[in-house]
């Protein structure tokens, strides 16, 4: 089931994000029978459920979704227009989605930045300005997907918006930081992709042996910091 939190995203992306996160935590807290997991995205929270478990918990066979909908609405009554967001994870109160603030070091060296020239040309600025602009902004993770741990970040300075490549690359190295349209993101694992690569981070964004397995999750605040090639090499050792 898809729960649509907002119809429009662009007008107030941060409000929508906060609403999505509040919706997700309220649904988690409600522990609705049959619910397997919740997956947030830009304007939606997807609720995955096992109808058989819901039926075993009392849902009528002829209207499992109606039964679930009632419980979802009940759970979401407590989600008021979010105002009190912004607590760091750990000191979050009830219904206040928490997030981490994470600094992501990026080496913007030519060798890693296949498309930095293209981004600079589109923006009409020098290479160094692209780096300054990219590092100067505050980003929020709106959702995680595409590949495990891939964060879709909002907050890219408008100037840096660059259309996706016409022909996607067959292979983009793990750690590549890239721009796709008005979003920026990081490829956690080697994969194909159509975004413009402007640098590389030594951080590991996805590690299946860890709990949680991802460095960044929906709601997290991100800033990029430019590092030298030497720093990059040291960090990956």
């Amino acid at each position, binding site marked *: 089931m*898809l729960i649509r939190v907002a119809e429009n*995203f662009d007008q107030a992306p941060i409000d929508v994000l906060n609403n999505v996160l509040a919706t*997700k935590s309220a649904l988690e807290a409600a522990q609705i029978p049959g619910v*397997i*997991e*919740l*997956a*947030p*995205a*830009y*304007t*939606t929270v*997807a609720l*995955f459920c096992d*109808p*058989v478990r819901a*039926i075993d918990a009392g849902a009528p*066979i*002829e*209207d*499992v*979704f109606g039964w679930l909908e009632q419980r979802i609405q009940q759970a979401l009554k407590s989600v008021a227009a979010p105002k009190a967001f912004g607590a760091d994870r750990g000191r979050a109160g009830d219904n206040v989605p928490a997030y981490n603030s994470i600094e992501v070091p990026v080496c913007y060296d030519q060798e890693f930045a296949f498309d930095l020239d293209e981004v600079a040309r589109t923006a009409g600025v020098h290479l160094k300005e692209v780096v300054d602009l990219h590092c100067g902004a505050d980003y929020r993770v709106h*959702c*995680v*997907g*595409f*590949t*495990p*741990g*891939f964060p*879709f970040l909002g907050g890219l300075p408008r100037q840096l918006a660059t259309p996706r490549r016409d022909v996607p690359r067959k292979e983009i190295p793990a750690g590549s930081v890239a721009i796709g349209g008005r979003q920026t993101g990081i490829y956690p*694992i080697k*994969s194909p992709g159509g975004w413009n690569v402007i640098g590389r981070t030594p951080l590991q964004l*996805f590690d*299946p*042996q860890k709990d*949680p*397995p*991802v460095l960044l*999750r*929906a709601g997290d605040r991100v800033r990029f910091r430019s590092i030298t090639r030497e720093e990059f090499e040291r960090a990956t050792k």
Partner: protein
Amino acid sequence: MGRAGFREFGVSLGGALDPHALRVANLLAGNEESAAGLEITFGGLRLRFADDRIVVWSGGNFDVRIASTPLPVGHPVLVRGGEEFTIDSPAGGCRAWLAISGGIDVPVVLGSRSGDLRAGFGGVKGRLVRDGEEFPLGENMPRAKVLIEKLRTEKIARWKPPHDWSSPTRRSPVLRYLRGADSGRFVESALQHFSSEGFFVSPDSDRMGIRLDGARLERSEDVDLLSEAVAPGTVQVPPSGKPILLLNDCQTIGGYPKIAHVITVDLPIAAQLSPGDRIRFSEVSIRDAHALLLERERNLEQFRRGLEPHFK
């Protein structure tokens, strides 16, 4: 059985493309229904066993042999240490699942033994099984040991599950679906085409999705959609107008409009589709979809109880 619970981190469900077939095979082999098994695509596998095991296969129309004796689908068999299991290319369908008593004992990663080939973890070293590879099996459960003793003389059990349960290949497959969240974004004729015309399975299909050739499905508006959740069964339509039926290794979110969602009980049919196969889609109500799933689960429960005497 796949890796549920990590979608918010972008981790695919994975697992057997026909989880029901593997569950049935596991129960017949004296395993927990969720034990790890092998998924075999287009056959061509030879396995040698180190010790005595109960083995059950399910899936398409394959020629399977144990030490040159044909092994019918869904029948538990005792394979002795040193004996070989072979599976040839299929005469129908394309996938088979093999349950081995004790299960395949690879490490549990993110709550599952399923391999995630795209992200390279889980399963056997996060990749396809290779020639000459050895992999560990778990210990036979007491019920499997009982069955091993019972099959010492007859070797192949005479009992099996109902035919449908272990071999879901169909001659003219129809996939039943619910309307997708974006069905309103298509022109009326696209929706009609979708439910009346046939589609052909394209060669570039895999465990992520089945690409379909056929009538071009036109959208009524040309707006970029924001990504939202997709799941196995989702039928999404990229700008080419050619639908893609997503399967277990699909990504967790997608930005293409979703025209339909194939119901869970019909995904095993999709798991058997090979390039060139022709399929049709047929709409059902959510109520029917739930009733069908409930019926399947209740039947499985009854089947499980019915098996008990064989393990005593």
